[in-house]
Protein backbone atom coordinates (compact mmCIF):
# COMPACT_ATOMS: atom_id res chain seq x y z
CA UNK A 1 0.00 0.00 0.00
CA UNK A 2 1.63 3.24 -1.12
CA UNK A 3 -0.84 5.98 -0.27
CA UNK A 4 -3.45 6.06 2.47
CA UNK A 5 -5.87 8.94 2.86
CA UNK A 6 -7.46 9.59 6.21
CA UNK A 7 -10.60 11.63 5.65
CA UNK A 8 -11.28 13.48 8.89
CA UNK A 9 -8.73 15.22 11.10
CA UNK A 10 -10.32 14.89 14.50
CA UNK A 11 -9.87 12.29 17.24
CA UNK A 12 -10.51 9.12 15.22
CA UNK A 13 -8.61 10.40 12.19
CA UNK A 14 -5.57 11.33 14.25
CA UNK A 15 -5.58 7.99 16.06
CA UNK A 16 -5.85 6.20 12.71
CA UNK A 17 -2.86 8.15 11.39
CA UNK A 18 -0.89 7.23 14.51
CA UNK A 19 -1.83 3.58 14.10
CA UNK A 20 -0.81 3.55 10.45
CA UNK A 21 2.69 4.67 11.38
CA UNK A 22 2.83 2.51 14.49
CA UNK A 23 1.88 -0.55 12.44
CA UNK A 24 4.64 0.09 9.94
CA UNK A 25 2.94 1.93 7.11
CA UNK A 26 5.74 4.08 5.67
CA UNK A 27 4.05 5.28 2.48
CA UNK A 28 2.36 8.56 1.71
CA UNK A 29 -0.14 9.55 4.38
CA UNK A 30 -2.67 12.24 3.52
CA UNK A 31 -5.02 13.65 6.16
CA UNK A 32 -8.00 15.67 4.96
CA UNK A 33 -9.86 17.86 7.46
CA UNK A 34 -12.89 20.05 6.81
CA UNK A 35 -12.08 22.33 9.71
CA UNK A 36 -9.07 24.60 9.41
CA UNK A 37 -7.77 23.52 12.82
CA UNK A 38 -5.18 20.91 13.72
CA UNK A 39 -6.76 17.98 15.63
CA UNK A 40 -8.30 19.15 18.89
CA UNK A 41 -10.26 17.52 21.66
CA UNK A 42 -13.98 18.21 21.66
CA UNK A 43 -15.12 17.21 25.17
CA UNK A 44 -13.74 20.36 26.87
CA UNK A 45 -15.65 22.63 24.46
CA UNK A 46 -18.86 22.44 26.48
CA UNK A 47 -17.02 22.52 29.79
CA UNK A 48 -13.72 24.20 30.65
CA UNK A 49 -13.34 25.90 27.30
CA UNK A 50 -16.79 27.44 27.49
CA UNK A 51 -16.27 28.71 31.02
CA UNK A 52 -12.85 30.08 30.13
CA UNK A 53 -11.01 27.76 32.50
CA UNK A 54 -9.15 26.15 29.61
CA UNK A 55 -7.61 28.12 26.78
CA UNK A 56 -7.49 26.93 23.19
CA UNK A 57 -3.96 25.58 23.46
CA UNK A 58 -5.21 23.03 26.02
CA UNK A 59 -7.39 21.45 23.34
CA UNK A 60 -4.58 20.29 21.06
CA UNK A 61 -4.51 16.52 20.60
CA UNK A 62 -1.02 16.50 19.21
CA UNK A 63 2.15 18.58 19.31
CA UNK A 64 4.69 19.75 16.73
CA UNK A 65 7.08 16.93 17.56
CA UNK A 66 4.49 14.23 16.92
CA UNK A 67 3.19 16.01 13.85
CA UNK A 68 6.71 15.95 12.44
CA UNK A 69 7.12 12.27 13.27
CA UNK A 70 3.83 11.36 11.58
CA UNK A 71 5.15 12.71 8.30
CA UNK A 72 1.68 13.30 6.90
CA UNK A 73 0.39 15.72 4.31
CA UNK A 74 -2.28 17.76 6.04
CA UNK A 75 -5.05 19.17 3.88
CA UNK A 76 -6.94 21.24 6.43
CA UNK A 77 -9.86 23.52 5.74
CA UNK A 78 -10.81 21.33 2.78
CA UNK A 79 -13.93 19.20 2.73
CA UNK A 80 -13.94 15.84 1.01
CA UNK A 81 -16.86 15.81 -1.38
CA UNK A 82 -16.63 12.38 -2.94
CA UNK A 83 -15.14 8.92 -3.08
CA UNK A 84 -15.10 7.16 -6.43
CA UNK A 85 -16.85 3.84 -6.90
CA UNK A 86 -13.67 1.79 -6.48
CA UNK A 87 -12.67 3.69 -3.39
CA UNK A 88 -9.40 4.80 -4.95
CA UNK A 89 -9.86 8.54 -5.35
CA UNK A 90 -10.93 11.06 -2.76
CA UNK A 91 -12.39 14.16 -4.35
CA UNK A 92 -12.01 17.46 -2.56
CA UNK A 93 -14.33 20.45 -2.44
CA UNK A 94 -11.61 22.69 -3.87
CA UNK A 95 -11.52 20.57 -7.01
CA UNK A 96 -8.44 18.61 -6.07
CA UNK A 97 -8.22 14.83 -5.88
CA UNK A 98 -6.13 12.39 -3.88
CA UNK A 99 -5.46 9.03 -5.48
CA UNK A 100 -4.76 6.35 -2.94
CA UNK A 101 -4.71 2.63 -2.22
CA UNK A 102 -6.36 2.86 1.17
CA UNK A 103 -8.94 5.12 2.78
CA UNK A 104 -9.83 5.66 6.42
CA UNK A 105 -13.21 7.33 6.76
CA UNK A 106 -13.22 9.41 9.93
CA UNK A 107 -15.53 12.26 9.02
CA UNK A 108 -17.40 12.18 12.30
CA UNK A 109 -20.81 13.71 12.82
CA UNK A 110 -22.39 17.15 12.71
CA UNK A 111 -24.66 18.76 15.24
CA UNK A 112 -28.30 18.29 14.32
CA UNK A 113 -30.01 21.63 13.75
CA UNK A 114 -33.54 22.90 14.00
CA UNK A 115 -35.26 23.18 10.63
CA UNK A 116 -35.16 26.53 8.87
CA UNK A 117 -32.67 29.37 9.03
CA UNK A 118 -31.32 30.17 12.49
CA UNK A 119 -31.49 33.76 13.70
CA UNK A 120 -28.48 35.26 15.48
CA UNK A 121 -28.06 34.02 19.03
CA UNK A 122 -28.87 30.42 18.15
CA UNK A 123 -25.97 28.00 18.54
CA UNK A 124 -24.97 24.40 18.24
CA UNK A 125 -21.92 23.10 20.08
CA UNK A 126 -19.80 20.64 18.19
CA UNK A 127 -16.79 22.39 16.76
CA UNK A 128 -14.21 24.82 18.05
CA UNK A 129 -15.77 27.53 15.91
CA UNK A 130 -19.17 26.75 17.46
CA UNK A 131 -17.68 27.06 20.93
CA UNK A 132 -15.90 30.31 20.10
CA UNK A 133 -19.13 31.80 18.78
CA UNK A 134 -21.13 30.71 21.82
CA UNK A 135 -18.47 31.97 24.19
CA UNK A 136 -18.49 35.34 22.45
CA UNK A 137 -22.27 35.50 22.67
CA UNK A 138 -22.24 34.84 26.42
CA UNK A 139 -20.16 37.89 27.22
CA UNK A 140 -21.52 40.83 29.12
CA UNK A 141 -24.03 40.49 31.91
CA UNK A 142 -26.58 37.91 32.88
CA UNK A 143 -28.38 36.50 29.88
CA UNK A 144 -31.38 34.26 29.49
CA UNK A 145 -30.09 31.05 27.98
CA UNK A 146 -32.42 28.32 26.74
CA UNK A 147 -30.84 24.95 26.02
CA UNK A 148 -32.90 22.72 23.74
CA UNK A 149 -32.17 19.08 24.56
CA UNK A 150 -31.15 17.63 27.91
CA UNK A 151 -28.54 15.14 26.72
CA UNK A 152 -24.92 15.38 27.75
CA UNK A 153 -24.01 18.29 25.48
CA UNK A 154 -27.11 20.16 26.61
CA UNK A 155 -26.54 19.43 30.27
CA UNK A 156 -22.88 20.34 30.20
CA UNK A 157 -23.58 23.54 28.32
CA UNK A 158 -26.34 24.44 30.78
CA UNK A 159 -23.99 23.74 33.66
CA UNK A 160 -21.26 25.91 32.15
CA UNK A 161 -23.68 28.75 31.41
CA UNK A 162 -25.04 28.59 34.97
CA UNK A 163 -21.54 28.72 36.40
CA UNK A 164 -20.95 31.86 34.33
CA UNK A 165 -23.93 33.43 36.09
CA UNK A 166 -26.54 33.19 33.35
CA UNK A 167 -30.21 32.37 33.80
CA UNK A 168 -30.57 28.91 32.25
CA UNK A 169 -33.52 26.74 31.22
CA UNK A 170 -33.20 23.29 29.68
CA UNK A 171 -36.06 22.01 27.54
CA UNK A 172 -36.31 18.27 26.99
CA UNK A 173 -39.01 16.69 24.84
CA UNK A 174 -38.83 13.29 26.54
CA UNK A 175 -40.22 12.69 30.04
CA UNK A 176 -36.63 12.68 31.30
CA UNK A 177 -33.26 13.42 29.70
CA UNK A 178 -31.11 10.37 28.89
CA UNK A 179 -34.05 8.04 29.43
CA UNK A 180 -33.13 5.51 26.70
CA UNK A 181 -29.47 5.52 27.74
CA UNK A 182 -29.84 5.27 31.51
CA UNK A 183 -33.35 4.01 32.24
CA UNK A 184 -35.87 5.85 34.44
CA UNK A 185 -34.29 5.47 37.90
CA UNK A 186 -30.86 6.76 37.04
CA UNK A 187 -32.01 9.23 34.40
CA UNK A 188 -33.99 10.81 37.24
CA UNK A 189 -30.92 10.87 39.47
CA UNK A 190 -28.94 12.68 36.78
CA UNK A 191 -31.78 15.08 36.02
CA UNK A 192 -31.73 16.23 39.65
CA UNK A 193 -28.32 17.75 39.02
CA UNK A 194 -29.91 20.55 36.99
CA UNK A 195 -31.99 21.67 39.91
CA UNK A 196 -29.04 21.48 42.26
CA UNK A 197 -27.13 23.67 39.83
CA UNK A 198 -29.87 26.29 39.77
CA UNK A 199 -31.05 25.43 36.26
CA UNK A 200 -34.73 24.99 35.34
CA UNK A 201 -35.47 21.70 33.60
CA UNK A 202 -38.69 21.46 31.59
CA UNK A 203 -39.45 17.92 30.47
CA UNK A 204 -42.07 16.30 28.30
CA UNK A 205 -42.53 19.37 26.19
CA UNK A 206 -41.33 19.86 22.63
CA UNK A 207 -40.12 22.98 20.90
CA UNK A 208 -42.28 24.25 18.06
CA UNK A 209 -40.16 27.15 16.91
CA UNK A 210 -38.09 30.18 17.70
CA UNK A 211 -39.21 33.77 18.16
CA UNK A 212 -37.07 36.47 16.69
CA UNK A 213 -36.92 40.22 16.26
CA UNK A 214 -35.27 42.27 13.59
CA UNK A 215 -32.61 44.60 14.84
CA UNK A 216 -32.10 48.19 13.92
CA UNK A 217 -28.44 48.29 14.81
CA UNK A 218 -26.77 44.91 15.25
CA UNK A 219 -23.84 44.67 17.64
CA UNK A 220 -20.40 45.17 16.13
CA UNK A 221 -19.23 41.99 14.49
CA UNK A 222 -22.73 40.65 13.97
CA UNK A 223 -24.28 40.46 10.59
CA UNK A 224 -27.65 41.99 9.79
CA UNK A 225 -30.79 39.94 10.20
CA UNK A 226 -33.01 38.98 13.07
CA UNK A 227 -31.92 37.87 16.53
CA UNK A 228 -33.60 35.23 18.64
CA UNK A 229 -35.89 36.47 21.41
CA UNK A 230 -37.60 33.31 22.59
CA UNK A 231 -38.33 29.62 22.27
CA UNK A 232 -41.91 28.56 21.57
CA UNK A 233 -43.07 25.37 23.27
CA UNK A 234 -45.72 22.87 22.23
CA UNK A 235 -47.88 23.79 25.23
CA UNK A 236 -48.13 27.39 24.04
CA UNK A 237 -45.56 28.91 26.35
CA UNK A 238 -42.79 31.08 24.98
CA UNK A 239 -39.53 31.13 26.93
CA UNK A 240 -37.77 34.47 26.58
CA UNK A 241 -34.21 33.90 25.40
CA UNK A 242 -31.16 35.98 24.59
CA UNK A 243 -29.12 32.94 23.65
CA UNK A 244 -30.34 29.51 22.51
CA UNK A 245 -28.21 26.38 22.39
CA UNK A 246 -29.52 23.49 20.33
CA UNK A 247 -28.27 20.16 21.68
CA UNK A 248 -30.44 17.61 19.93
CA UNK A 249 -27.90 15.07 18.80
CA UNK A 250 -25.62 14.58 15.86
CA UNK A 251 -25.89 13.15 12.38
CA UNK A 252 -23.02 11.20 10.81
CA UNK A 253 -21.18 12.98 8.00
CA UNK A 254 -21.83 10.58 5.14
CA UNK A 255 -23.26 12.94 2.50
CA UNK A 256 -19.95 13.06 0.64
CA UNK A 257 -20.15 9.30 0.05
CA UNK A 258 -23.31 9.51 -2.06
CA UNK A 259 -21.42 8.71 -5.27
CA UNK A 260 -19.48 5.82 -3.78
CA UNK A 261 -20.52 2.19 -3.66
CA UNK A 262 -20.42 2.13 0.13
CA UNK A 263 -23.58 1.27 2.02
CA UNK A 264 -24.70 4.09 4.27
CA UNK A 265 -27.46 3.84 6.85
CA UNK A 266 -27.08 6.29 9.73
CA UNK A 267 -23.33 5.81 9.38
CA UNK A 268 -20.99 3.94 7.08
CA UNK A 269 -21.79 0.26 7.32
CA UNK A 270 -18.82 -1.88 8.16
CA UNK A 271 -18.08 -5.20 9.79
CA UNK A 272 -16.92 -5.70 13.35
CA UNK A 273 -13.41 -4.85 12.24
CA UNK A 274 -14.48 -1.47 10.78
CA UNK A 275 -14.01 -2.74 7.20
CA UNK A 276 -16.56 -1.51 4.66
CA UNK A 277 -17.77 -3.41 1.60
CA UNK A 278 -14.49 -2.34 -0.03
CA UNK A 279 -11.57 -4.06 1.72
CA UNK A 280 -9.27 -1.06 1.31
CA UNK A 281 -11.77 1.33 2.91
CA UNK A 282 -12.34 1.35 6.66
CA UNK A 283 -14.44 3.64 8.86
CA UNK A 284 -13.79 4.71 12.44
CA UNK A 285 -15.32 6.97 15.07
CA UNK A 286 -18.72 8.64 15.09
CA UNK A 287 -19.31 8.01 11.38
CA UNK A 288 -18.79 4.23 11.53
CA UNK A 289 -21.62 1.78 12.02
CA UNK A 290 -19.56 -1.25 12.94
CA UNK A 291 -21.39 -4.53 13.20
CA UNK A 292 -24.67 -2.63 13.42
CA UNK A 293 -23.59 -0.25 16.16
CA UNK A 294 -22.70 3.41 15.81
CA UNK A 295 -21.23 4.78 19.02
CA UNK A 296 -20.51 8.47 19.48
CA UNK A 297 -18.06 7.82 22.28
CA UNK A 298 -14.64 9.34 22.70
CA UNK A 299 -13.24 5.94 23.62
CA UNK A 300 -14.71 4.28 20.52
CA UNK A 301 -12.92 6.84 18.38
CA UNK A 302 -9.64 6.07 20.10
CA UNK A 303 -10.07 2.30 20.32
CA UNK A 304 -11.37 1.42 16.86
CA UNK A 305 -8.43 2.66 14.76
CA UNK A 306 -6.05 -0.06 15.98
CA UNK A 307 -8.13 -2.90 14.57
CA UNK A 308 -9.32 -0.86 11.58
CA UNK A 309 -5.78 -0.05 10.49
CA UNK A 310 -4.58 -3.60 11.02
CA UNK A 311 -7.41 -4.86 8.82
CA UNK A 312 -6.79 -2.14 6.25
CA UNK A 313 -3.13 -3.02 5.92
CA UNK A 314 -3.93 -6.75 5.78
CA UNK A 315 -6.64 -6.31 3.16
CA UNK A 316 -9.09 -8.38 5.18
CA UNK A 317 -10.65 -8.50 8.61
CA UNK A 318 -8.24 -10.07 11.06
CA UNK A 319 -9.42 -8.33 14.19
CA UNK A 320 -12.68 -6.99 15.54
CA UNK A 321 -13.00 -3.75 17.45
CA UNK A 322 -15.86 -3.76 19.85
CA UNK A 323 -14.70 -1.70 22.80
CA UNK A 324 -16.87 -1.70 25.88
CA UNK A 325 -19.05 1.41 25.60
CA UNK A 326 -17.81 4.01 28.05
CA UNK A 327 -18.71 7.66 28.40
CA UNK A 328 -18.49 10.34 30.98
CA UNK A 329 -19.91 13.79 31.57
CA UNK A 330 -18.86 16.61 33.85
CA UNK A 331 -21.71 18.82 34.94
CA UNK A 332 -22.57 20.93 37.97
CA UNK A 333 -19.32 19.90 39.63
CA UNK A 334 -20.20 16.19 39.32
CA UNK A 335 -18.61 13.53 37.20
CA UNK A 336 -20.98 11.00 35.65
CA UNK A 337 -19.41 7.83 34.26
CA UNK A 338 -21.16 5.01 32.44
CA UNK A 339 -19.79 1.78 31.03
CA UNK A 340 -21.31 -1.37 29.64
CA UNK A 341 -24.21 -2.55 27.57
CA UNK A 342 -27.42 -1.83 29.39
CA UNK A 343 -30.63 -3.11 27.87
CA UNK A 344 -34.12 -1.83 28.55
CA UNK A 345 -35.54 -3.63 31.55
CA UNK A 346 -32.24 -4.30 33.31
CA UNK A 347 -32.54 -4.05 37.07
CA UNK A 348 -30.82 -1.15 38.79
CA UNK A 349 -28.99 -1.81 42.03
CA UNK A 350 -27.27 0.94 43.98
CA UNK A 351 -24.15 -0.72 45.33
CA UNK A 352 -22.55 2.29 47.00
CA UNK A 353 -23.65 5.77 48.07
CA UNK A 354 -27.09 7.07 47.19
CA UNK A 355 -28.66 9.28 44.51
CA UNK A 356 -30.02 11.54 47.26
CA UNK A 357 -26.48 12.31 48.36
CA UNK A 358 -25.44 12.95 44.78
CA UNK A 359 -22.72 10.31 44.96
CA UNK A 360 -23.30 6.71 44.04
CA UNK A 361 -22.32 3.66 42.06
CA UNK A 362 -25.11 1.69 40.45
CA UNK A 363 -25.05 -1.60 38.61
CA UNK A 364 -27.45 -2.58 35.87
CA UNK A 365 -28.15 -6.28 36.20
CA UNK A 366 -29.81 -8.99 34.17
CA UNK A 367 -30.21 -12.58 35.27
CA UNK A 368 -27.83 -12.02 38.16
CA UNK A 369 -25.03 -10.59 36.06
CA UNK A 370 -23.85 -7.01 35.75
CA UNK A 371 -24.42 -5.56 32.27
CA UNK A 372 -23.41 -1.96 32.88
CA UNK A 373 -22.55 0.54 35.59
CA UNK A 374 -23.19 4.19 36.25
CA UNK A 375 -21.38 6.30 38.79
CA UNK A 376 -21.71 9.81 40.10
CA UNK A 377 -18.48 11.03 41.66
CA UNK A 378 -17.19 7.55 42.45
CA UNK A 379 -14.30 7.21 40.05
CA UNK A 380 -12.33 4.42 41.68
CA UNK A 381 -15.13 1.91 42.34
CA UNK A 382 -16.40 2.76 38.86
CA UNK A 383 -13.04 1.95 37.28
CA UNK A 384 -13.04 -1.38 39.09
CA UNK A 385 -16.36 -2.45 37.61
CA UNK A 386 -15.53 -0.98 34.21
CA UNK A 387 -12.40 -3.11 34.08
CA UNK A 388 -14.37 -6.15 35.19
CA UNK A 389 -16.93 -5.56 32.45
CA UNK A 390 -14.21 -5.13 29.83
CA UNK A 391 -12.44 -8.28 31.01
CA UNK A 392 -15.67 -10.25 30.98
CA UNK A 393 -16.16 -9.40 27.30
CA UNK A 394 -12.89 -11.02 26.36
CA UNK A 395 -13.83 -14.26 28.10
CA UNK A 396 -15.46 -17.11 26.15
CA UNK A 397 -18.91 -16.21 27.48
CA UNK A 398 -19.07 -12.51 26.77
CA UNK A 399 -21.49 -9.85 27.89
CA UNK A 400 -21.71 -10.17 31.61
CA UNK A 401 -19.93 -10.07 34.90
CA UNK A 402 -20.90 -12.39 37.69
CA UNK A 403 -22.83 -10.37 40.23
CA UNK A 404 -20.51 -11.38 43.06
CA UNK A 405 -17.64 -9.26 41.74
CA UNK A 406 -19.42 -6.18 43.04
CA UNK A 407 -17.55 -6.40 46.33
CA UNK A 408 -16.85 -2.71 46.38
Amino acid at each position, binding site marked *: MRTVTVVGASLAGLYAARELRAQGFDGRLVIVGEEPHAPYDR*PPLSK*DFLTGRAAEDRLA*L*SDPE*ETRELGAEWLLGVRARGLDARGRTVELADGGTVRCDGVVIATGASARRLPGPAPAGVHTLRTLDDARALRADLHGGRQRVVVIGGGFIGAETASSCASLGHDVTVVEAAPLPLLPQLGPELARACAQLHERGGVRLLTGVGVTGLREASRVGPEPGEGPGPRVTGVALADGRVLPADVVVVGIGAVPNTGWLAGSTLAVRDGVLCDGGCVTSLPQVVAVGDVARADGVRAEHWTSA*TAQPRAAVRNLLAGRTLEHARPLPYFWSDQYGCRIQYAGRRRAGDTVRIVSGSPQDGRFLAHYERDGTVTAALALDM*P*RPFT*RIRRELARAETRPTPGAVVGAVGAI
Partner: protein
Amino acid sequence: MIPVCRLEDLPVGESVRIDTVPPIAVFRTEGELYAIDDTCTHQDASLSEGWLEGCLVECPLHEASFDLRTGQPTCLPARRPVRTHRVTVDDGVIHVHPAASADSAA
Protein backbone atom coordinates in the same frame (compact mmCIF):
# COMPACT_ATOMS: atom_id res chain seq x y z
CA MET B 1 8.13 19.49 53.33
CA ILE B 2 4.45 18.70 53.75
CA PRO B 3 3.15 16.17 56.27
CA VAL B 4 0.55 13.91 54.67
CA CYS B 5 -0.67 11.29 57.16
CA ARG B 6 0.64 8.48 59.31
CA LEU B 7 2.05 5.57 57.32
CA GLU B 8 -0.49 3.12 58.75
CA ASP B 9 -3.31 5.39 57.59
CA LEU B 10 -2.36 4.83 53.95
CA PRO B 11 -2.78 1.11 53.25
CA VAL B 12 -0.99 -0.58 50.37
CA GLY B 13 -2.85 0.05 47.11
CA GLU B 14 -4.35 3.30 48.36
CA SER B 15 -3.68 6.91 47.54
CA VAL B 16 -4.34 10.30 49.03
CA ARG B 17 -4.57 13.73 47.48
CA ILE B 18 -3.07 16.75 49.17
CA ASP B 19 -4.42 20.19 48.40
CA THR B 20 -1.24 21.92 47.39
CA VAL B 21 -1.17 24.17 44.34
CA PRO B 22 -1.09 22.26 42.11
CA PRO B 23 -2.42 19.27 44.07
CA ILE B 24 -0.19 16.26 44.70
CA ALA B 25 -1.19 12.58 44.86
CA VAL B 26 0.61 10.19 47.18
CA PHE B 27 0.47 6.45 46.42
CA ARG B 28 1.47 3.47 48.48
CA THR B 29 2.36 0.45 46.37
CA GLU B 30 3.78 -2.86 47.57
CA GLY B 31 6.74 -1.62 49.56
CA GLU B 32 7.09 1.91 48.20
CA LEU B 33 5.64 5.41 48.47
CA TYR B 34 5.37 7.74 45.49
CA ALA B 35 4.17 11.28 44.99
CA ILE B 36 3.24 12.85 41.66
CA ASP B 37 1.20 15.81 40.52
CA ASP B 38 -2.42 14.82 40.96
CA THR B 39 -3.88 16.31 37.79
CA CYS B 40 -3.62 14.23 34.63
CA THR B 41 -1.65 16.10 31.97
CA HIS B 42 -4.26 15.18 29.39
CA GLN B 43 -7.38 16.59 30.98
CA ASP B 44 -8.80 17.60 34.29
CA ALA B 45 -8.91 14.37 36.29
CA SER B 46 -7.49 13.43 39.67
CA LEU B 47 -4.87 10.68 39.46
CA SER B 48 -5.32 9.96 43.17
CA GLU B 49 -8.67 8.50 42.09
CA GLY B 50 -6.97 6.43 39.43
CA TRP B 51 -6.36 2.73 39.16
CA LEU B 52 -3.11 1.57 40.75
CA GLU B 53 -1.36 -1.43 39.25
CA GLY B 54 2.26 -2.07 40.16
CA CYS B 55 4.11 1.17 39.61
CA LEU B 56 1.54 2.51 37.18
CA VAL B 57 -1.52 4.62 37.80
CA GLU B 58 -4.30 4.76 35.23
CA CYS B 59 -6.26 8.00 34.92
CA PRO B 60 -9.88 7.44 35.98
CA LEU B 61 -11.20 9.36 32.98
CA HIS B 62 -9.39 8.31 29.79
CA GLU B 63 -7.07 5.49 30.78
CA ALA B 64 -3.89 7.48 30.31
CA SER B 65 -1.25 5.74 32.39
CA PHE B 66 1.74 7.18 34.27
CA ASP B 67 4.80 5.56 35.79
CA LEU B 68 4.90 6.63 39.43
CA ARG B 69 8.70 6.35 39.50
CA THR B 70 9.34 8.77 36.65
CA GLY B 71 6.07 10.58 36.03
CA GLN B 72 6.29 9.61 32.37
CA PRO B 73 3.10 8.69 30.51
CA THR B 74 3.16 5.09 29.32
CA CYS B 75 0.30 5.38 26.85
CA LEU B 76 -2.00 7.85 25.11
CA PRO B 77 -3.90 10.07 25.45
CA ALA B 78 -1.39 11.68 27.84
CA ARG B 79 1.75 12.89 26.11
CA ARG B 80 3.37 15.00 28.82
CA PRO B 81 4.80 13.75 32.13
CA VAL B 82 3.56 14.67 35.58
CA ARG B 83 6.08 15.95 38.10
CA THR B 84 7.36 13.52 40.70
CA HIS B 85 8.03 14.53 44.28
CA ARG B 86 10.26 13.02 46.93
CA VAL B 87 8.54 11.17 49.78
CA THR B 88 9.99 10.40 53.19
CA VAL B 89 8.66 8.81 56.36
CA ASP B 90 9.74 10.57 59.54
CA ASP B 91 8.59 9.24 62.90
CA GLY B 92 5.91 7.24 61.13
CA VAL B 93 4.53 10.24 59.26
CA ILE B 94 4.60 10.47 55.46
CA HIS B 95 6.07 13.71 54.16
CA VAL B 96 6.13 15.04 50.61
CA HIS B 97 8.92 17.31 49.42
CA PRO B 98 7.41 19.18 46.48
CA ALA B 99 9.65 19.58 43.44
CA ALA B 100 10.98 23.08 43.03
CA SER B 101 8.90 24.54 40.22
CA ALA B 102 5.82 23.70 38.22
CA ASP B 103 7.73 23.35 34.96
CA SER B 104 10.56 21.14 36.17
CA ALA B 105 9.02 18.08 34.55
CA ALA B 106 8.90 19.57 31.06
